[in-house]
C-alpha cells in the first residue's frame, strides 16, 4: 500500500510541475485588456487588446495596411495595422490585437492580429480528459491492494 501512495505522490508532483511549466509558458498570453481599459489607463509598451471589429469601419489600403475600430463593451478604439496580410481581419469578428497604444494620436498601433486563443477551453478539455482517468486508476489500484489484504487477512487465501 505504501508503494502505491509513493508512486501516486510522484505522479502528483510531476503533474503540478507540468501545470506550472505550462502556466508560465502561456502567462504572457493570458491577460488581455478591453478597449475601455486601454483608453483609461493608457498602458505603455506591448499590450494585448480583446474586442470586436466594428461593422462598417474596416478600411484596407494595399497589402498589410488597415484601419478599423475595435469595439469593446462600452468603448471603441481606433486601430491602425501594418504587417503581413492578416488572415482573420474581418468586420464583426472578435480578435486579439497585439501592439502599442499611442496616447498622443489616440490610435492603437497593432503589430499582430489573431483569433481569440480560447485557453480556457484547452485547459478544460485536458482536465476533463485526464483527471477522471487518474482518479479512476488510483481508486482501482487502491482497491486491488485492499482486496489482496482482505484475502490474506480473512485466511481465505491458500497457496495454489
Amino acid at each position, binding site marked *: 500500500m505504501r508503494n502505491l501512495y509513493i508512486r501516486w505522490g510522484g505522479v502528483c508532483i510531476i503533474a503540478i510541475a507540468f501545470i506550472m511549466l505550462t502556466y508560465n509558458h502561456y502567462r504572457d498570453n493570458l491577460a488581455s485588456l478591453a478597449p475601455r481599459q486601454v483608453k483609461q489607463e493608457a498602458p505603455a509598451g506591448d499590450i494585448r487588446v480583446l474586442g*470586436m471589429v466594428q*461593422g*462598417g469601419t474596416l478600411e484596407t489600403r494595399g497589402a498589410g495596411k488597415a484601419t478599423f475600430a475595435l469595439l469593446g463593451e462600452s468603448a471603441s478604439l481606433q486601430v491602425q495595422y501594418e504587417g503581413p496580410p492578416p*488572415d*482573420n481581419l*474581418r*468586420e*464583426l*469578428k*472578435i480578435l486579439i490585437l497585439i501592439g502599442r497604444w499611442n496616447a498622443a494620436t489616440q490610435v492603437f498601433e497593432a503589430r499582430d492580429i489573431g*483569433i*481569440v486563443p*480560447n485557453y480556457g477551453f484547452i485547459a478544460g478539455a485536458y482536465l476533463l480528459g485526464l483527471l477522471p482517468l487518474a482518479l479512476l486508476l488510483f481508486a482501482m489500484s487502491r482497491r486491488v491492494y485492499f482486496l489482496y489484504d482482505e484475502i490474506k487477512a480473512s485466511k481465505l487465501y491458500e497457496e495454489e
Partner: protein
Amino acid sequence: MGKKKVGMVVSLLLVGGALGYLALGNFGENVVYFFTPSEVKAFSTDYYQKKVRVGGMVVEGSLETYPDRLGLIFQLTDGEATIPVTFEGIPPDLFKEGQGAVVEGYWSGEHRFESNLIMAKHSEDYMPIELKRAGVELPRKDFMKSLVE
C-alpha cells in the same frame, strides 16, 4: 426479483433502441444532416418556412456586413449552385470566406436563406501557419466534390 427483470428489460431496450435507431430510425440515408445549395434551390414549396440546415463553402469576396447592426450577408455554394444567406448575430470565430459552413434556418419564397445559426466546418488538415503561407497542401477530402456526389 421483479425489479431485476425490469432492469434487464430496460437495459436491453436501451441497446436495442440505440441499435434500432441506427438501423431504421432517423439516421443515415433517411435524414441528411444538411442540404446543399443545389438541393435548396430545387426545394418544393413544402420546404418553405421549414427549419433546415444547409452546408457549403462561403464564396470568396461575398461577405458583407451591416454598418448599424450585427449581421451578415454572404453567398453559400456547393460548386454548382449558389444561394444568398442572411444571418443575424455574431458568427463563429472560425467562420471565413473560402471555408465550409453549415447554416441553420429557413428558405423563404424570395429565394433567400434566413439563418439564425452558423456552424463553422473545418477540414481535416492541420498545419502551422508558416507552412500554409508557404503554399503547402496536405491530402484531404475535397469538400465541394463530396457535396456534389
